[in-house]
């Protein structure tokens, strides 16, 4: 099979992602203009100081026609210019940029932990006796159904207030990252483990596993090298959804643990009607989500030979 169809599919996937990213920017623009009231009032929120309206009109080009404003808006976002926060009187990029690191740290730590937990749970329990499966699927169901902030509160209660192992809030060192990362990881791990185990149980019934057993391979080797590799493929497609969920969940987790980060910035912006900041965070999250799922889909295409053959 030549590489042509693969390249074409990758190109098609990239084009779709650009289309979706452009669509999300357009949606934001339409939403801003479709809202009742003048756009100056929406952007100004509850603020009122001399020169504010003039500054808004100049920055958003409000004296020009709507199509011109739209082109300008798309061009600005494309060059990573999210405008100025009129509440904090600071460029939005600076505000978001200074707070993005703790959130990325939290989401990445939680994502890695969720992955490890899910793989462990699925590999150890797939196709085992009814007791192991029953216990594992119950734990997964509870993890996937419990709100992330409740898990956080329970962890705080047990490990910060009772055992005093971890700090109650803040983001000073690795110790303050442990509980938030666990709280954020558990719901994702629960869902991921469910999907992964189902895929593994289907794989365990495949003829090539029988062949591997017939060759005298040990159970652990079969599970890790043959079953997990095969079952991980469908789970890869969940990656995009996982990243979106982790970003959204990070906002809530940060509030439970009083961590600085995008969550605090966004929540504050929502409460003070700081539209440029909220818009920037939402668009940024959408871009990250789209980029990540595109990357995963391309990886998926590249590593699964069955898709290439079609």
């Amino acid at each position: 099979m030549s590489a042509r169809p693969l390249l074409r599919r990758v190109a098609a996937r990239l084009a779709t992602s650009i289309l979706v990213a452009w669509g999300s920017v357009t949606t934001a623009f339409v939403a801003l203009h479709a809202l009742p009231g003048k756009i100056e009032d929406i952007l100004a929120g509850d603020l009122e100081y001399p020169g504010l309206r003039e500054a808004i009109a100049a920055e958003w080009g409000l004296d020009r026609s709507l199509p011109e404003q739209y082109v300008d808006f798309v061009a600005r976002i494309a060059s990573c210019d999210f405008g100025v926060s009129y509440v904090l009187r600071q460029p939005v990029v600076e505000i978001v940029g200074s707070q993005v690191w703790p959130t990325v740290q939290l989401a990445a730590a939680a994502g890695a932990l969720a992955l490890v937990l899910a793989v462990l749970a699925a590999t150890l329990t797939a196709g085992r006796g009814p007791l192991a499966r029953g216990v594992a699927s119950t734990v997964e169901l509870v993890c996937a159904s419990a709100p992330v902030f409740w898990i956080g509160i329970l962890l705080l209660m047990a490990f910060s207030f009772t055992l005093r192992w971890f700090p109650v809030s803040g983001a000073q060192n690795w110790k303050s990252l442990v509980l938030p990362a666990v709280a954020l990881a558990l719901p994702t791990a629960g869902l991921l483990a469910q999907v992964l185990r189902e895929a593994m149980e289907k794989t365990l019934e495949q003829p090539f596993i029988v062949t591997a057993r017939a060759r005298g391979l040990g159970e652990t080797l079969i599970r890790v090298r043959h079953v997990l590799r095969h079952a991980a493929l469908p789970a890869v497609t969940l990656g995009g959804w996982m990243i979106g969920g982790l970003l959204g969940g990070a906002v809530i987790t940060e509030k439970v643990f009083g961590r600085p980060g995008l969550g605090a910035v966004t929540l504050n912006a929502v409460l003070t009607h700081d539209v440029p900041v909220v818009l920037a965070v939402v668009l940024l999250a959408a871009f990250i989500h789209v980029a990540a799922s595109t990357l995963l889909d391309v990886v998926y295409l590249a590593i699964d030979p069955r898709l290439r053959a079609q």
Partner: protein
Amino acid sequence: MTDTLLDARIAAAEAPARRRAGLGHALRQSAPLAAAAFIAVLAAVAIAPELFTRADPLAEDVMAALKAPGAEHLFGTDRLGRDVFARVVHGAQYSLAIGLGSAAISVVFGVALGLLAGLRSRLLDEAICRLFDVISSFPGVLLAMLVVTFLGAGMENIAVAVGVAGIPKFGRVVRAQTQLVRDADYVTHAVIYGRSRLATFAAHLLPNVLTAIPVVGTVYVGTTILAVSGLSFLGLGPQPPTPEWGVMLAESRDVLRVAWWPSVFPGAAITLTVISFTVLGNALQRRFEGRTS
């Protein structure tokens, strides 16, 4: 010959996995019933909370603040001396109403767009699919935050936000189902026998497309209740002193050092509700798949 041998060996390898009886089997049979019962009780609690508790969920009594669970207060009292049991009982209506309301928004728009995409031109199909992609590219929590920035905090607004975020979920299911049914023999036969397009649509297509909705919807209501509680926890939904479960948890965070009961009970209520919808929905799904395959 080799195939027969292989098949036999596969069957032998599968046998231990198939032999699942006893406790696990009994659990799988009874769990959906328990879930349905829990949801029925929850619905009763939401409709008539006064039947389940005589205490006023809003009555403050500073002298009785942070009393541990006991005979007088089943779930204890919170920081302002309000009865936690009464608040949990009265909270059911908010979670159910917002959860069902937003699921209804997702279903109505998802079904309409999914049918359009599945029936009409390729171009429209493509456009609607990309619209679904755009909507699902926004993480739900952040999309809701944007809606609240524009429209303000409140129950209706977060229901709208969560509802919009769920449109692609139903839209994609309905689109796939429509395309499947559209090409089915019985639809072709109806057309050959000269039934009008509208009649074919109403009598054959629509009922078959819509059977998937309650199945997907039941699990989905659990998801929306989870999302809504998170938004309320952030302070974007109903405002204090409303006895909404997410709001209660946000308030309980401050007294965590001294009291566990104001946070454990509302959280357990959310979790049990979500579990019940998930278990019931999955059971419906298994039945549904068993029937169609």
